[in-house]
């Protein structure tokens, strides 16, 4: 497939925003269950939610560049019964609303204790956050299922696609949350979030490697024989009906060499996994904010390459019809 940067930015930005929100929520949950020390400055959650909102907004704006008629985008909410894209179009505003609510409670000082049980005091914002967690996972599943549900794009049509989208998003979001916690001077929370960022990055390394392995030995169901219905071992295309190229030659092929594709794979394998892991390992204990932000930034750049590769690697069966000019 031809990788569209609008979609690459949409999926990576909202992934990081969702992960960041999950990071904030888990920090608050652990703190209020007295597993972590209490966060005195609720601006950590508030500012975190604002950053998450900015990333979500960036993704939303980016998605509009993908549309031929962005002014009709509201119509995308109508077919949620059948279309994962429509479901995503509903889940994204839901996510934005949830994070806005969560951030507004913290920043506006509207928070109060909603439930007490012995030493444990759960605040109202935590319950608002549960709504956000629901929205986060709904959005993750909708985004990933857009790709995983197309059964003849065999590279995408796998549960690994959904797992990878969830783990890539949470890993990069937790890395950002780690840097943010460090910026707010929350050393123990930095350690907590940083360790989770490391665990998630290692997990997604395993699941992405699994999908790369799966895709490298994929057996394609369609062939030129099934495409034109002629049973002969040797069929060669001689013309595709258009000499100047067409939508079919532009939309479904990345237009780069195999070497370029391979390079992107190595680039993302380095930038998403080992480099952020080394940076996180080195800076989590010492709460070095600069290094932690660099870990997130480098991983994010790597994720752009990863998403580009995700699209470019998918072989659309229609390409069988477009082998020769």
């Amino acid at each position, binding site marked *: 497939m031809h990788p569209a940067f609008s979609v690459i930015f949409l999926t990576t930005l909202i992934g990081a925003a969702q992960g960041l929100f999950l990071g904030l929520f888990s920090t608050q949950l652990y703190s209020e269950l007295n597993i972590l020390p209490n966060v005195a400055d609720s601006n950590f959650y508030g500012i975190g939610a604002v950053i998450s909102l900015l990333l979500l907004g960036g993704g939303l704006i980016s998605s509009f560049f993908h549309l031929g008629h962005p002014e009709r985008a509201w119509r995308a909410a109508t077919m949620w019964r059948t279309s*994962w894209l429509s479901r995503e179009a509903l889940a994204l505003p839901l996510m934005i609303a949830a994070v806005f609510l969560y951030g507004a409670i913290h920043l506006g000082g509207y928070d109060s204790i909603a439930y007490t049980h012995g030493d444990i005091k759960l605040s109202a914002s935590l319950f608002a956050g549960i709504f956000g967690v629901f929205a986060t996972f709904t959005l993750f599943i909708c985004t990933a299922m857009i790709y995983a549900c197309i059964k003849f794009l065999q590279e995408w049509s796998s549960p690994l696609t959904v797992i990878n989208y969830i783990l890539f998003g949470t890993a990069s979001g937790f890395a950002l949350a780690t840097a943010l916690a460090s910026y707010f001077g929350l050393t123990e929370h930095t350690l907590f979030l940083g360790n989770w960022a490391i665990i998630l990055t290692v997990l997604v390394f395993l699941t992405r490697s699994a999908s790369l392995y799966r895709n490298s030995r994929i057996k394609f169901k369609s062939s030129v024989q099934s495409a034109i219905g002629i049973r002969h071992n040797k*069929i060669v295309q001689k013309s595709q*009906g258009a000499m100047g190229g067409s939508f079919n030659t532009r939309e479904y092929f990345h237009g780069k060499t195999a070497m370029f594709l391979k390079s992107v794979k190595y680039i993302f394998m380095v930038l998403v996994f080992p480099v952020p892991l080394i940076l996180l390992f080195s800076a989590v204990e010492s709460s070095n904010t600069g290094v932690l932000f660099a870990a997130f930034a480098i991983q994010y750049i790597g994720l752009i390459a990863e998403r580009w590769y995700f699209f470019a690697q998918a072989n659309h069966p229609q390409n069988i019809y477009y082998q020769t000019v």
Partner: protein
Amino acid sequence: MTQLALIIDLNVCVGCSACVTSCKEWNTSGPAGFMSDDNPYQKDPNGTFFNRVQTYEVGEFPKTETVHFPKSCLHCEEPPCVPVCPTGASYKRELDGIVLVDYDKCIGCKYCSWACPYGAREIDEHQKVMKKCTLCVDRIYDEALPESERKPACVLACPTNARLFGDVHDPDSEVSEMIREEGGYQLMPEWGTQPSNHYLPRRKNKITIHKDELIRVDNPLNKEQKQHHEPVNAPTLEDNSYN
């Protein structure tokens, strides 16, 4: 339920592209608006088409066969492009099974084109909506036209009658009979899309005729000694048959 479709006979298609040009001519002048072109007469021509004729070479030289293969939307019975559309712009008509795009609802997200394994959909680069074959829905019901002309433009243009149009759900229709009797098949059956358009394979009709079958033993001319060939002395096929 009616399911209108095209039957394309690869046995007689000569690859003249008359269906391509007539399709473009009819649909670019239709009520749904033009099909935009870029640089039609210059370098890198580009444009929106509903139908293209491709060419394949089957076999190894010199024992090859050239197959011309027209490709347009197949109007699947289970169209994968329809449920993925987020706006409902892409739909399949209950009335006649034609898969259409509502150009006023389409947001141009291209998701349906990803979900079509045949590459039958194209985005119009200027109108920014997804377009595809409509089976000339604006002419097949046009009562201003004589009944013989209420067919898709490509069908009327085909000089070799390689394109047939009709209801594939009616077992007595011409197209159903052709599918049944001439080995009609669907493209990429592995995806369960059940395309309504069928293709008829290349087929060769051969009969073996022996020399003695060409000679009538009981030819009355024999009796008159006016036959133009040597008399056959050996028993012939007709000597052994009971007719």
